[in-house]
C-alpha cells in the first residue's frame, strides 16, 4: 500500500559503480572460459573423426557429428586384454559406489550421533584418533591394508573395495554429522528422553528426519569421491571389480597402434557423467546443507 507521492525506491544495484561491475563480470567470464575450454575440447573431439582430429583444429566444431566413438568407448574399446568397453566398469562402479556410500553414511551418522549426544567415555580421544586417521595420505596405508584384507580373505573382491571405502570415508562423514548434531539444541534430546525415546528411537524418529540436508551433503561428497577413486579400485578390486576409472586409464594408456583421441575423450566424458549429474541435480542441497550448520533452523 504505497501512497501516490511516495518516492520510488532507488535501485542502487543497477547503475551504481558500473566500472567495477563490468570488471567483475569480465573476470568471472574469463575464469569461466578458462575452466570450460578443456571440457569444450573434450566434447567436440569426442564427436570428431580421426581425420578431422589430425588436421589439428582443436577448437573448431566437428564437421560431421558421429556417435561411433562413444559407442566404441562404451562397448568395445580394449581395456587391457578384454575389449568390452567401459560398460563393465560402469556396472562395477555402481556396485562399488552405492553400497559404499550407503554404508559410510549410516556408519558415520550413527558414530557422529553417539559422539555428540551420548556421553561416551573417552569420546574426544576416540574422535581425535579417528580424525588423525583421516589425515593420513592413504597411499601410505595401502600395503598394510592389502595384508589385512588378504588375511581376512576379502582382497580382490567387491566386499574388500567397499570395506576400504567405508573405512576411509568414516572420519569425514563422522565429522560432518557430529558437527551437525552438535548444532542441534540438547533440549531436543532431553525432551525425547522424557518422552521415552531411547538410543535408536531418537535417532530414527527425530534426528534422521532433521538430517536430510546433511545426508545429501555427505552423499554428494562420497558419491563423487568414490566414483572418482582410482587407487582403491585398482588395488583392491582385482580384475573382476575394476571400477570405471581404472578401465578408463587402461583405454587411455594403451600403447599399441594409433591413439584414438575421439574414443578416449568419449570414454573420459562417459566416466564423469555420474559425478556431473550428481552436482547438477543436487547442488542446491549441497549449498543448503553446508549453510544449515551455520544458521539455525
Amino acid at each position: 500500500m504505497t501512497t501516490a507521492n511516495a518516492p520510488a525506491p532507488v535501485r542502487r544495484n543497477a547503475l551504481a559503480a558500473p566500472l567495477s561491475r563490468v570488471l567483475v563480470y569480465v573476470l568471472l567470464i574469463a575464469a569461466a572460459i578458462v575452466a570450460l575450454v578443456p571440457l569444450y575440447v573434450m566434447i567436440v573431439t569426442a564427436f570428431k573423426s580421426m581425420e578431422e582430429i589430425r588436421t589439428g583444429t582443436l577448437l573448431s566444431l566437428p564437421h560431421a557429428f558421429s556417435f561411433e566413438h562413444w559407442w566404441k568407448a562404451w562397448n568395445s574399446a580394449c581395456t587391457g586384454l578384454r575389449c568390452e568397453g567401459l560398460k563393465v566398469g560402469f556396472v562395477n562402479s555402481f556396485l562399488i559406489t552405492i553400497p559404499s556410500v550407503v554404508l559410510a553414511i549410516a556408519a558415520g551418522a550413527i558414530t557422529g550421533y553417539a559422539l555428540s549426544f551420548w556421553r561416551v567415555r573417552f569420546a574426544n580421544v576416540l574422535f581425535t584418533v579417528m580424525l588423525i586417521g583421516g589425515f593420513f595420505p592413504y597411499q601410505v596405508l595401502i600395503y598394510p591394508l592389502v595384508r589385512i584384507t588378504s588375511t581376512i580373505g576379502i582382497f580382490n573382491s567387491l566386499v574388500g573395495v567397499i570395506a576400504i571405502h567405508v573405512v576411509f570415508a568414516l572420519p569425514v562423514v563422522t565429522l560432518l554429522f557430529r558437527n551437525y548434531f552438535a548444532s542441534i539444541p540438547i533440549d531436543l534430546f532431553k525432551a525425547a528422553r522424557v518422552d521415552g525415546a531411547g538410543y535408536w528411537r531418537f535417532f530414527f524418529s527425530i534426528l534422521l528426519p532433521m538430517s536430510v540436508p546433511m545426508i545429501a551433503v555427505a552423499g554428494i561428497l562420497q558419491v563423487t569421491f568414490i566414483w572418482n577413486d582410482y587407487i582403491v579400485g585398482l588395488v583392491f578390486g582385482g580384475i573382476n571389480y575394476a571400477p570405471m576409472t581404472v578401465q578408463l586409464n587402461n583405454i587411455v594408456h594403451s600403447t599399441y597402434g594409433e591413439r584414438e583421441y575421439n574414443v578416449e575423450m568419449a570414454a573420459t566424458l562417459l566416466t564423469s557423467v555420474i559425478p556431473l549429474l550428481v552436482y547438477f541435480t543436487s547442488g542446491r542441497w549441497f549449498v543448503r546443507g553446508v549453510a544449515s550448520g551455520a544458521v539455525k533452523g
Partner: protein
Amino acid sequence: MTGVQLRDLGIRYGNVEVLKGIDLDIPASEFIVLLGPSGCGKSTLLNAIAGLQDVAEGQILIGGHDMTSVEPKNRGIAMVFQSYALYPRMSVRGNLSFGLKVAKVAKAEIERRVANVAKMLQIEPLLDRKPSELSGGQRQRVAIGRAVVRDAGVFLFDEPLSNLDAQLRSDLRVEIKRLHQRLKSTMIYVTHDQIEAMTLADRIVVMKDRIIQQQGTPDEIYNKPANTFVARFVGSPAMNFLEGVVKGDKAIVDGEAVRIASALSAPLVDGRKVIVGIRPEDLTVQTDQAASGFAAEVDVVEPMGPEKLVWCKRGTIGLSAKTPSSSKVKSGDSIRLGLSEDRLHIFDAETGRRL
C-alpha cells in the same frame, strides 16, 4: 497426587561439585519455584529430578518411590523447556502424541488425549502445522501441551517463558497458573525472573552458589528475606542497603539515627556493624524540608505509569524510592526520604544474615 523429596542430593561434573547436600520436600500439588541467578545450579537440580542428570549422592523420591536411578520416562514426570524443544519434522499432533506412541498407548486413547489437551490449550487449529510455522507463544503452548498430554504427576518447567516477549510472557504466566489450578499436579518451575517466581509460586526456593539460600512463601521471601542476597534478588528495583552501627535501640546510618528495635528479633550490642535494608516502596518522598528523614537530592525520575520511581543521591549513597504518579518531584530537587521503621530489614554486616 505425587510429592517430590530430595534427600542430601549431590551432583558433580568430574571433580567439580555442582550441588551438595540439597534437601527439599515438595508436597503433592504444590507449585514450587526454584529462583536464582544463572549458574546457581537450579537447572541442574531440575534435570536431576527429571533423570537427565546423573546424581553423585543422595536420593530423589517421587511419589514416595526412590527414583534416583530410574529412566526419565518412568518417573511420572513431564518437562517444558526454554527452547521449546519441539520435534521440528513432526506436526503439532505428532509432537503431542510422540511420547504416547513410544509408550504404546492405544491409538484411540492417544487421539482422545491429544484432542483434550488441544482443546484445553486452544491449539486445535494448529494441530496439523509444523513447529516452524508457529509463533513463539504458540510453540511454547504446544510444548506445554506435550507435557500435559503425558498425564504426569509432576511437571518440570525449565525457564519456559524466558524466550518470549513481555506481553506473551505475562499471558502464558497466567495460563500456567490456571493450568496448575486445573490439573492440581505438582509443579517445579525454574526461573531467574523474580516476578514469575512471586506470581506463580506457592513456595519459592532461592538458590545461589549451589546452595539453597531460603525457602518460603512469596510473602515470606519478600517480607522476611533471610539474607542480603535474597533481599536484593527479589523485588524491583532492588532493596536499598545502608551501612550502620548499632547504638541502643537505634542504628547510626550516615550520621543519622534510625530506630531499628522494631525490626529486630533480639536486641543487639552497641557498636555492632549492621546493614539496614529498606524497600523503595517503604521510603516516602517528602518535599517538605522540615519533615523528618534522610536529606537527599533527586537524580533521575522514571514514570512507570501507576507510580514513579525516584532515584536519589545522598553523597555517595544511591537510594531508590517509589512515589505516586501524581508526585511532582523532578531531577535536582532536594527532598527528605521518610523511613517506615517497622518495614526495615536488619542484616549482619559481615555474614549478610538477617538479624
